[in-house]
Each structure stands twice: as C-alpha cells, then as structure tokens.
C-alpha cells in the first residue's frame, strides 16, 4: 500500500519538477526528501492482537433491572441501526435470546431454574475461524489483524452467502432502505443502504480513537468486558482464568471470541 500512496506524491513532484524545467528527478530523491508516512494510526487507538468479549450474565441479571437494554440501545444508536419493526426483516447488531435459543446444544429438559428462559446478550462472535469470511465472494467481509470480523459495506453485493454461513444468526440484511427507520440519526457514523448485509463491528471506529465499544461503555454493571486475548495480563484473560465459561456452538470449529459466564 505504501507504494501506491507514494505514486501520487511522486507524480505531483515529478510534474512540478517538469514544469520548472528541471527534468525528471531521480525517484530516490523524492523518497529521500520526505520521510513522513502519509497515513498513520491514531496514537490513542486501542491496539490488540485478538479482541474478545466476556459477557458476565450473572452481573447482568443480578444487578441490572428487569428489561435493561442499555447496551443494545447504545450500540444501535451509535451505529444507526434501524428499527424496522418486523421480525422478518429485523436488523440487529446486539440483542437478547433465551438460553435455550442461544445455546440450543446445551439445553435440557430439567435445566436449573436460574438458566431456564433467561435472556442472554448475543452478538457477532468475531470468530477466529469465521465461515462468513470464508464464503464471501468479494472479501467484503474480512478478518482484521486484531481479530475483528468486519464488513466493507462499499463492496458487499448482497448475495447473502454470509448469512447462510453464519451459525449464530448474527447477520442482518437490508431488505429495504433503512434510513426512514432510524429514529435518531447519529451524524458521526454512516447508515447502511438497501441491499447490503450488516453486523456488529466490535466498534472498530471507537477503538481507533481509544474508546471501548459502545455496549461495554454503556453497561453500568460491568457485565461486558472487552480485551485482548493474546495479552496474558488483560482483563479478559484474568476473568477467563478464574471462571467457568461457555461459548455458543464451539463444536462447529468457528472458534468464537465471545465468552459467557453464567
């Protein structure tokens, strides 16, 4: 990419040089004359190698009042997620599903009362081995170096192959123009348009500015913890070390990066 960025600069300088009648400068001079990289990472950005989230459902149920949707509201407002108002075309990045629905392979008839029908926070699992990335025919869905599975909405052709591939139902499709269904538009973040798929992006845009994901920030009770799995001293690793955790459908080999404490 660096070469590509340099191309335009080179062109400008060379063009300028020609106008002055100095002839074509050696390319090495052009590079040597300016050692500033053109594009940088924000120095405040949160940097990780494998982002993950621990959802402490105990904290959520014990401390949160019944029906608390702070995390969901924060996410959906931040990202201009529309409220389509019909289950078939619903668009959601983070939502709740009952234990039996979220963990269908781990339910049983005589389950402990404390789990039965309990709402679980569910979102994209940012799998380490994501099937949606594998099937996408345009690389519109891809996995970043920090483990975030993210979409380039400019490139999505709306084939919905990723929706068929995702075993977590984490992907939504814009069956119609979402704009009229956004109650309060966040002017800082784009919307999507009809015909593309969308999903949770682990707040890549906030991490880039050094902020935690909106849902994590919104939870008053610290039920959502975000951190880097590759860092042994990270808060997520500390929690995982000392708690019994479950994951959604680990048997499918997708290696989900959302962990649940129950």
């Amino acid at each position, binding site marked *: 990419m660096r070469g590509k960025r340099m191309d335009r*600069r080179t062109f*400008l300088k060379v063009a300028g040089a020609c106008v002055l009648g100095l002839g074509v400068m050696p390319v090495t001079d052009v590079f040597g004359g300016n050692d500033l*990289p053109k*594009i*940088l990472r924000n120095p405040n950005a949160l940097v990780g190698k494998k982002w993950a989230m621990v959802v402490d459902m105990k904290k959520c149920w014990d401390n949160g009042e019944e029906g608390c949707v702070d995390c969901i509201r924060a996410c959906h407002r931040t990202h201009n997620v529309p409220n389509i108002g019909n289950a078939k075309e619903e668009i959601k990045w983070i939502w709740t599903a009952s234990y039996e629905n979220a963990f269908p392979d781990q339910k049983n008839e005589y389950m402990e009362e404390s789990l039965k029908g309990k709402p679980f926070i569910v979102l994209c699992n940012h799998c380490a081995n994501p099937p949606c990335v594998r099937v996408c025919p345009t690389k519109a869905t891809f996995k970043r170096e920090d483990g975030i599975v993210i979409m380039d909405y*400019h490139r999505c052709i709306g084939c919905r192959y990723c929706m068929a591939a995702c075993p977590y139902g984490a992907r939504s499709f814009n069956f119609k*123009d979402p704009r009229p269904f956004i109650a309060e*538009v966040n002017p800082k*973040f*784009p919307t999507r348009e009809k015909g593309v798929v969308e999903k949770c992006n682990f707040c890549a845009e906030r991490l880039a500015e050094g902020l935690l994901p909106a849902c994590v920030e919104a939870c008053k009770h610290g039920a959502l913890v975000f951190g880097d799995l590759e860092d042994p001293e990270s808060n997520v690793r500390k929690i995982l070390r000392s708690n019994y955790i479950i994951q959604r459908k680990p048997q499918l080999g997708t290696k989900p990066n959302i962990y649940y404490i129950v």
Partner: protein
Amino acid sequence: MYNARNTVIGLILLIGLVSFPFWYSTGKAASAPQPKLDTPTIQELEEKRCVEATPYMRASHMQLLNEWRTSVIREGNRIYVAENGERYNMSLQNTCMECHSNKTQFCDRCHKYVGVKPDCWTCHIESKENKL
C-alpha cells in the same frame, strides 16, 4: 440496391438518432459551475486550504477518498498526513463534510455538471443545513 427506399430511410433515421445528443445541444454550452465555499467552518479558517492543494483536490478527490476508505476500513489507520504535514481524521462524513457542509452548493453542482451520481450519501450522512 435491394429495397432501397426503406434502407435509405432507415439509415437516415439511424444517423439522426445517433447524432441526437450533438445537434440537440448545439449552441447551448452550459457554463462551468462555481462551487460555493462560504460555509461557516470555511469562513473561520485562517488559511483557506483543503487537505491538499485545490487543483489536486479538484482532479483527484475521488482517488483520495478511495484511498482513505481502504485504509480506514481494511487497515484500521485513520490519520492522514497531508503534503504540508497537517494531520486529518480520514472521514468523508466527519472531516470533509465538516467544512463542506453545503453539499448542494458544493458537491452537487459539479457532479451534476459532469453528470456523475456518486452514491456516497445513501450511507454517509450529509450535514443538516442541506435538508432545510
């Protein structure tokens, strides 16, 4: 010539249709648009300069935006260092439109003149003042 009359009529019609855009617009040269720069944010600027020099921006803003898009989404790098060393947050919606808050007077004028319809604004939100 076989079936000469119909062939000639057909040919004339064809030439007429194909050349339609040329003779339809003869003598009606549209004047080049003057995009407006008088937004409050631009007025406050000491040096009225876009992220790069005006001629470059005029000719290549779309390449620049494409480059930004790739960098921001795919590489996660969001700070652009301009030719003069100034740093910018690479964002159409939050940086470009901050100054050029007058989309209809700025973006649309030229786009209309050259007959392009960029679909940026089906997702990226334009500043409020345009909606008035």
